[in-house]
């Protein structure tokens, strides 16, 4: 286990670069999917408003 973490004394650089990559990719996914959900909800609300306004 220690050998795996140490990675021939380069462990700190290797694990940091993998962790940063996973964090950035994960962050991008959360941000983009979160925005999608928010905009979709807003659009649905506005469409409902438009329909009720045109029917009244």
């Amino acid at each position: 286990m220690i050998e795996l973490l140490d990675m021939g004394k380069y462990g700190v650089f290797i694990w940091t670069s993998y962790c940063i990559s996973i964090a950035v990719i994960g962050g991008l996914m959360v941000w983009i999917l979160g925005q999608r959900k928010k905009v979709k909800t807003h659009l649905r609300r506005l469409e409902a408003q438009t329909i009720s306004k045109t029917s009244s």
Partner: protein
Amino acid sequence: MFSYFANPERFQNLAKWLAPILAVLGLLGIVVGFGAGLFLTPADYQQGDAARMIYVHVPAAWLASFAYAFLAVSSLISFVWRHNLADAAAKAAAPLGAAFTFLALLTGALWGKPMWGAYWVWDARLTSMLVLFFLYLGYMAVRSIVPDEARAARLAAITAMVGAVNLPIIKFSVDWWNSLHQPSSVFRADGSAIDWSMLWPLLVAALGYTALFGWLVLVQIQTELDRRKIHRLQRRLAGGRVSRPENPQRNLTND
């Protein structure tokens, strides 16, 4: 041909089935590529285990350039043919490209320290990648600073097209100037210089990054098209008044 592919309705139909496929391919490619890079591939005879950083650094660097090429081509189509969807695609690619360029720079610095003894050197490859990062930031800044949406789109498209000159500089920087950065070792006229046992996880990770980019760009374009729809609906509800001028580029939606 551009009109066919630029129709937002056709795009939505395409995105509906393509996005989940790209999402699965992307995540699977990254998990397999990273896992194999960390645990399966042998250590390099010169760099030892430090060479395992190739599986996070190189796909990010490739994608940084690929995303910019996508941004520049989309900007050209948007600028010349005024296609709404091409403009949305360019806008969608910019933050993703910036994030992958940031990753390439950061993982490169982490690889550089044990190999070169420094996190950063003003080497041609590193400097041209930093310029690429600033080009992405510049593109996004133009889009958010200029208040008129149509003008912002055109100015940003010009920025993106001019910045494309940096792509061949990145590619050939290691050949044109003396560089600490190693020359191209995968795409070479005489074949790859990397052994297959180390090459396949790199290709799988690169494919995963590219598919992930494709998926996230599709989702971003869908969000941008919905945002523009919201703007039109808000204008309709407000009786024609809008706080920010709508993009007057050719709009092919039927609503």
